[in-house]
């Protein structure tokens, strides 16, 4: 797995040389295009991350966790991972640190540990990626993109727990 990227880069350079294209010039030209992208990205990222930090730091996240405790238990989600599932759509690094807390407390190979690992793997940071991609490109109306993403995230959580029970327990 670790060899994929070096191999890919090397064959790319060889391919360019065969076709008489200067790989260095092409690289520099492409890398220069990364700056307009980053410049557009930063203000949008600042706004989104400020909101996310406020949400998790103000106690809103903890309140929502408490609120969803019994409903989650009712539908078959281990209530210990609700906190993680609420953080998951917002922040990749934030949810990995919560995952690490859960794995240390309940054991990485326990039922709760397996469920939380699978749920993190089968979902994405939808409430971070979609606002970021859209606001960076001036899209205000996302129409059904969020609905589709949230629905597929919920499906990912439920099927994840289902497969843990089916295959691993």
């Amino acid at each position: 797995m670790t060899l994929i990227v070096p191999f890919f880069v090397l064959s790319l350079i060889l391919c360019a040389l065969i076709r008489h294209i200067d790989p260095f010039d092409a690289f520099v030209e492409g890398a220069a295009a990364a700056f307009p992208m980053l410049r557009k990205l930063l203000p949008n990222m600042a706004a989104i991350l400020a909101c996310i930090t406020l949400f998790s730091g103000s106690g809103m996240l903890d309140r929502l966790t408490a609120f969803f405790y019994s409903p989650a238990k009712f539908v078959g989600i281990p209530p210990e991972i609700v906190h993680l599932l609420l953080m998951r759509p917002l922040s990749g690094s934030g949810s990995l640190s919560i995952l690490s807390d859960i794995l240390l407390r309940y054991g990485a190979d326990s039922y709760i540990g397996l469920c939380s690992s699978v749920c993190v793997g089968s979902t994405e940071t939808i409430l971070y990626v979609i606002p970021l991609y859209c606001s960076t490109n001036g899209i205000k109306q996302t129409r059904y993109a969020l609905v589709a993403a949230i629905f597929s995230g919920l499906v990912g959580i439920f099927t994840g727990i289902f497969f843990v029970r089916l295959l691993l327990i």
Partner: protein
Amino acid sequence: MLLLVSGADSSIKLCLSLSGSYLLWMGLFNIAAKTGLVEKLASLMRRPLRLLMPGIGEAAGPVSLNLSANFLGLGNAATPFGLEAMRILSKDSHGTASREICMFLALNTSAVELLPTGVIAVRTACGSTDPYLIVLPTFLSSIISAFCAVLVCKIFEGMKR
């Protein structure tokens, strides 16, 4: 107040820490584009992608690179390709997400990954006896959730035509 500042602060840190890999991947992307490799990958993926996004046009290259990078677990490489794809897709959208954009966002956020590298690293660090145990259930459930994302998009497309 402190929280808001620390949030904005982390955007600077994140942007700076991402900028290195953006420069690298955008540079490599340009080599691949000049040698015609992007066009080759795009023409391979065009048929299946056309089914999902009929008006994909010239975004086929970055879209297929984004999805393949995601699949291989190269998150840092996937983001610049995703932004590039979004830039091309939203050129004449006038602030409203087209059905191609909705489908792309839904596919992008349904996380079909061969190896969830971040989770495996955390599991290893937390003393799991078998960190890779979760790979199969994760893969199966992300396939199903991606299928559901496509389905929901198709249903909405049918409704709002």
